[in-house]
């Protein structure tokens, strides 16, 4: 980050402690527009907890998270609109087909029917699941469900994207598709932080690496 400029998202010495159990050791990071950061560490290191704190879903016990210099409050409309995240399964409507769920998401962000339809189809094609567009969520395999969850998260507009192990249950080809999709968003100026165990994905996205438990 160049001196004097405010980073898009910063976390300063955040920790999460519950009943003296340290869920997230002291961690700091800063993300600029168009920058990717891979959050790494062994199971239980606190990667998901860090993403939850960055998404405003969990308060930090100490430290602070700032979005463009303001303390992050995810209930604020501006902050909700800026931060998209996939941490755990997203809410799915059992009575809507995949393309309808994506159109529905786009409609709530203000798209008219035609624009929403276009965006929905692009999201499906980007991850090569357009052939599944007429399926209901209950008709998907676990890998397909993972791809669709990613498609839903990628379909909504955002400036910061947080993903928890996006490579889960995906084969090498699909992991490549995810990397391509993330690179496209980086090019558009989105800041991305993702927890991962995949060295290949880190390399494909070209991201910096933060190992939880080690200071920046």
């Amino acid at each position: 980050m160049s001196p004097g400029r405010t980073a898009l998202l910063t976390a300063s010495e955040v920790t999460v402690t519950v009943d003296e159990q340290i869920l997230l050791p002291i961690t700091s990071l800063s993300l600029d527009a168009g920058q990717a950061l891979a959050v790494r560490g062994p199971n239980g290191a606190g990667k998901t907890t860090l993403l939850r704190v960055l998404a405003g879903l969990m308060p930090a016990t100490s430290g602070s998270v700032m979005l463009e210099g303001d303390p992050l409050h995810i209930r604020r409309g501006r902050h909700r609109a800026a931060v998209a995240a996939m941490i755990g399964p997203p809410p799915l409507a059992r009575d809507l087909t995949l393309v309808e769920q994506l159109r529905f998401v786009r409609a709530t962000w203000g798209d008219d029917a035609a624009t929403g339809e276009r965006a929905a189809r692009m999201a499906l094609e980007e991850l090569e699941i357009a052939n599944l567009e007429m399926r209901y969520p209950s008709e998907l395999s676990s890998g397909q469900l993972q791809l669709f969850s990613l498609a839903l998260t990628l379909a909504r507009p955002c400036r910061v994207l947080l993903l928890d192990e996006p490579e889960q249950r995906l084969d090498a080809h699909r992991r490549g598709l995810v990397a391509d999709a993330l690179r496209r968003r980086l090019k558009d100026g989105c800041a991305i932080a993702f927890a991962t165990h995949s060295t290949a994905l880190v390399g494909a996205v070209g991201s910096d690496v933060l190992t939880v438990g080690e200071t920046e």
Partner: protein
Amino acid sequence: MAATRAVQRARNAHRTRGDTAYVVYVCVLVAAIAGIPVVRAIVLALATPTAMSALSEAGTERSIAVLGALIWSIALVVGSARGPVAPPPFVAATLSRSDISPRAAWARDLLGSALGMALVLVAISALAVSGFLAHAVAVGASISFVIGTVLFAVATTAIWLAGQVLGRRGAVILGSALALLLVAAVVIPLDPPLLPASALANLWPSTDGATSTAGAALVVLAATALAAVWAIVILLDRMLPTTVEDHAQRWEAMTVLAATGDISGALDRTRARPTVGRRVRIPFSRPLILALLQRAAIGAARTPLRIVVALVALAAAGVGWGWIAELQAGPRWVPAIGAGLLTFAAIGAFSDGFREAADMAGRPALYGRTAWTMLLLHVPLPLLAGVVVPVAAAMLSGSTVETAAIVATIGVALVAVRAYDATKGPMPIELMMPVPTPAGDASAIGMWAWQADALLWTGVVSFWLSTSSTSGPATLLWAAPVVALLAALTAGRLRRASS
């Protein structure tokens, strides 16, 4: 089979004498503290001269015929979600994949479910005729009605099992037949008792004594029960291993969730999956409230059986409210609470949007609106269903505008209760803490009250409205603060879930 049962018994922890004594103690306490006073209040209310006179009117018989036909339709829908054969998953997997015939493997489970359901129906029918029995009026007819209910329960078991066993096509055919039966119960003369539901209605006692067609009605019901037993044997033989395993796993997951207080999570397991209308296009027109209405309506239409049953139940509740309003005196709150609970249950089929909005709380933002805004945007469909259908049914059955206003008010209030119920979430852990009292641990009271709060709200709203029909439409204004209170409680729940 005996060896399998022995293994199953060995796997389960044995209940000690202390466990049995505790269960008996709890049952006696519940019956003494809660059960007996409630039953006594209902019997006393039904035994008043005005109530007995009202219950002897011809309209009661028609209501029983409709209710009977409705119970069969509901049994079919329930069977597809939780059939009468739902053993523990271990037993389901072992027996369904063995060389034991399905009939031999599942007869005992079916019998248990059938007995449970028959007990519930008999208890309700006995309570319904208790007013007559308290005055020793129409004793023979009352006993005949209870016997008729037992025979009716046998046929209900067969339909419940059919809901579990039949595929989509079979369920649609049987569902259509049951819908026709329901229409017939509304329109055709009850005498002679040609249909099982009208036969049950024929057995309903009156202060004039037994009806002349009681014998014929019992014969119709007995023949139906015999045919049902024959159908049960055939259906059991057609039970697929995957069906039993599916129901067994779903039921176990539901009971675990219910035991931990997550009733909405448990009910979510029973919710129907879409079966038709995949290619029906949702326009997602602007404004957003219209897009959500289109999405909710088409989404709901994709589970047609569930929606048809809900619409019929709403129409029946509307007709029921019309009948209740015409009662000059007596315990109108008893049928009013029944109609309220029926309305509440039926609105649930149109309330998936509320659950969807509640599900957003505490998760990363996916939609461009807050959970509260999405919940509000989802109000139109349940409101249309919960108000328009019962009001139209009440008006078509000859109700006054005042009665229609009451029906509309209860629809609005119960939609608010539905929204409140959707945002419930899991039970707070504090409620599970022991509450020591001289009579024992009272924590169960708090847990039950928490789990049944939507039903308690429905009961209170229905009770209150049943008094409005005598004290004038101005009393309907009380509904505004009640709906506002429910909205505030709902918003509070969403806020807590989001933080």
